[in-house]
């Protein structure tokens, strides 16, 4: 389940709370939007949700026993950033 967040704060985005929201977003495939005024970030947040992509991948041949497994998704495209879940549950 992806975590998206919208916060109001200074442009440098410093602060423990904001750092954690960024971490949650990064580790779940979501996006953390930070703007000086919350209203300015609404469109960016909606666009981020609406532009989610879905990857269909072959399930591992061995059952995962319902455990969390590490997941890594990389791209060769320069300048492209991919936020994806850091872990995946395999049935």
């Amino acid at each position, binding site marked *: *389940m*992806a975590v998206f967040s919208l*916060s109001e704060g200074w442009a440098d985005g410093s602060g423990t709370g904001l750092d954690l929201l960024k971490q949650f977003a990064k580790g779940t495939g979501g996006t953390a939007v930070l703007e000086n005024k919350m209203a300015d970030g609404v469109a960016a947040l909606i666009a981020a*949700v609406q532009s989610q992509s879905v990857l*269909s*991948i072959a399930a591992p041949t061995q059952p995962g026993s319902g455990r969390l497994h590490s997941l890594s998704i990389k791209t060769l495209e320069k300048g492209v*950033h991919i936020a994806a879940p850091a*872990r995946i549950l395999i049935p």
Partner: protein
Amino acid sequence: MTLTQRWYRTAFFVVCVWGAHGALSSLAQTPSAQAPLKIFVSASAKDGSPITPDASTLSVAIDKQPVKINSVHSAKDDKLLFAVMVDISGSEAPKETALKDAALKIFQGLTSDQSQGYLVLFSTQTYPSKRPLQPSEVQYALEHFRFNGRTALYDGIAQISSGILSKGQNPDISRRIVVVLSDGVDNYSHILAAKMEEWSSEREWRSFRCRRVGRTVQGRA
């Protein structure tokens, strides 16, 4: 046994055998008995604009083992279930109007035939709506509460991910997201931030397994 009863029994037997044959055939055609896995990702270009990544440039690994990518496409046609979590703790009181406006606009922007969402208010406790709401209902709900108390953000996310947004409660919707409107400060949760993601994923999964087992037992009874 009458002739009609015999006929029904034979028809039932034929249907069962046909069903079992179909299921076994499909298993035999699939190298792995497991269905493909769906992973939802967000991709952005250098300028931050959202994009759909090109499958030919992607590589995926599970536990460092490469995995085959079947396809990549926009998730816009996948059903979406979302929860907008609004921080109503005392420290967010100065931003009350901005938070309420943002929550309403997000509901208006995301709600569609394919997409519905819960409104979740949280401070020291979490108060989810009893069902997905329409934007007009959200507007009404946002007018009737006060900002006060401390903040239990991680507890709130964990509760939502293992409850109303869990796979167990929504087995047919794989695209489920949480939208948090907050400064991210948490001063009341019982869950540690570092364990939050792992904890909520496992709880989400456990709830799914429990419900599946429950359903099986019920089916056999």
